[in-house]
């Protein structure tokens, strides 16, 4: 279809490479600043709260590649995340690899799940696709519950050292990993959005038949989106066992994570990469505050209310709402 080499040659490629480097540099600097600021709080709690919020930024961005760009609402988030979690658990119990190797492995497995699931379900329209993805997740959950090696329904404990050099406390280490994952997911989503693939996805979302007539290979592009989105969701799940230290199916297939991953892009706006980020930061921070001040049971209520309110008032999310306001100004 298109030569990959075309992306790497010529003066414009040089320009592109410089811009990519600059973007990465800015992100690295920003990330370092965030970690430093968190460290000033003095307790590990700031890191753990940040981990949760950053995880949501990553999850929402990854989900939106399929949900927002392609228009296929994946209800099976928990399944992909859990693939990452349990890949990590199995590695912990057998190979004892460091996270830096486990994360790509989790991405591969989750990506394969995305590919398989996509192949079977992408021919279904709208809500049937969503219910089918939920079905995958529940079936996976049932399989894990009955798998004694990873502890079945009783779960396993995952130990980690109290600190890792040169990062200092283990909590700081986890935050840095999640920060890298979050920035990675956002940058990938942004790159896809602006590329020809993003255009193809948008065309498919608007009108599949017309897109096919314009040359877009619908199944292949959708499979790309499910595989990539799934792989990223799995990658994000890989550090999770070290974060919660006790892993059981209920926490791996966490409802809060699944619901938030879907709600955050819907609230923030599904059309661009910025929407999931805003939704995640807003909702994530609110839930952290609620957990500390009132109770964590309210988290789902907050999501539910915000979702209903925002989807009614701002159907295209916060980003779409702001964009609409700007377009109305003479």
């Amino acid at each position, binding site marked *: 279809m298109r030569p990959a080499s075309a992306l790497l040659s010529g003066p414009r490629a040089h320009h592109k490479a410089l811009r990519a480097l600059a973007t990465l540099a800015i992100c690295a600097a920003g990330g370092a600043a965030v970690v430093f600021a968190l460290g000033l709080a003095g307790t590990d709690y700031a890191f753990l709260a940040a981990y949760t919020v950053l995880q949501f930024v990553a999850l929402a961005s990854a989900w939106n590649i399929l949900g927002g760009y392609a228009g296929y609402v994946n209800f099976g988030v928990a399944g992909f995340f859990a693939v990452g979690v349990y890949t990590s658990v199995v590695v912990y119990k057998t190979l004892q690899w460091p996270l830096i190797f486990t994360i790509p492995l989790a991405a591969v497995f989750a990506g394969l799940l995305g590919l398989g699931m996509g192949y079977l379900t992408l021919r279904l329209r709208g809500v049937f696709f969503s219910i089918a993805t939920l*079905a*995958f997740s529940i*079936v996976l959950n*049932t399989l894990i519950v009955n798998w004694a090696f990873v502890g079945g329904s009783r779960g396993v404990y995952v130990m980690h050292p109290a600190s890792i050099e040169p990062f200092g406390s283990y909590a700081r280490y986890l935050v840095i990993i999640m920060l890298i994952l979050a920035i990675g997911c956002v940058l990938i989503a942004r790159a896809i959005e602006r590329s020809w693939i993003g255009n193809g996805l948008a065309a498919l979302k608007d009108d599949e038949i017309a897109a096919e007539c314009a040359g877009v290979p619908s199944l292949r592009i959708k499979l790309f989106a499910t595989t990539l989105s799934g792989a990223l969701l799995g990658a994000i799940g890989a550090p999770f066992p070290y974060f919660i230290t006790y892993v059981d199916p209920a926490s791996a297939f966490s409802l809060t994570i699944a619901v938030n991953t879907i709600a955050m892009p*819907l609230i923030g706006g599904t059309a661009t990469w910025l929407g999931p980020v805003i939704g995640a930061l807003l909702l994530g921070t609110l839930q952290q505050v609620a957990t500390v001040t009132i109770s964590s*049971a309210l988290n*789902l*209520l907050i999501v539910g209310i915000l979702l*209903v309110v925002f989807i009614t008032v701002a159907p295209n999310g916060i980003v779409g709402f702001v964009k609409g306001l700007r377009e109305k100004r003479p």
Partner: protein
Amino acid sequence: MIFSLDLFCNAVVAGILLGGFYCAVAVGITIAFGMLDIVNIAHPAFVMAGGFIAYFCNTKFGVDPVLACAIATVPAYIVGRLVYRFYYHAFEKRGEESLQGLAFFFGLLFIIEVGLLLTFGVDYRFVEAAYIGPTIDVGFISIPWRLLVPLLVGLAVTGGIIAFLSRTFIGKAILAVSQDPLALRLVGGNPVKVKEIAFGLSIATAILSGALLIVIQPIEPSMGRDFIGRVFAIAVLGGMTSLPGTIMASMILGVAESLTTTFFGPSWSPAVAFGLLLVTLAAKPAGIMGR
């Protein structure tokens, strides 16, 4: 795994009884989603709400749970109409129904669930009634009354709705809307009003099913989510718009789940509904009775 005839027969009977209850729950989805294309994913939450209404009336006032919810169907119908009216003005009218409508009901699902959680707490709640406990024994088959009553009520409700849809004017209008809203308009009907009534009916059946659920087993607020898969599996298997299909599919699911639980253990039963759903979508997406 011990296979014995009477274990098998009891499992099948229990499955059929359970199927009657599933039918009551799924009828509302067949109407709202199958016929009207309204993706009310919050339907199970309404069922749970019905269950807790039954619990409340039963423990506070000593009222029979099924009776309590039968009375509650009237306000439930009104609430359903209001919910649809809001949904219509906020989403359907603007033509944004698919994603945003789904998101709306998704949010509603959690609002209701957590609302129940905050009101009633996380503990399992149960009701007391004369028919919870005794069983009818026919040879080696035991038929618990607490499963038989939901079956009878479930089939009665479904039968009533089938009759309503085919004999009354409004019922026929609902069928007309599900097939061809434009044609309905041309004969002077108002599709929006008809859909509103149908949705109200859908929610009313949900509330009533809640009573049936709490008769069968104790409930707690988060159980609703287990039913999402079941009701959609039934809707798809039964052929979306067909109510007789709903009855058949409910029985099939009930028996499949019952056999799985009996011979493989309860930890496998959540997968049954979804497994059935995936198989149906792969093999014959139009369902048993689908066109």
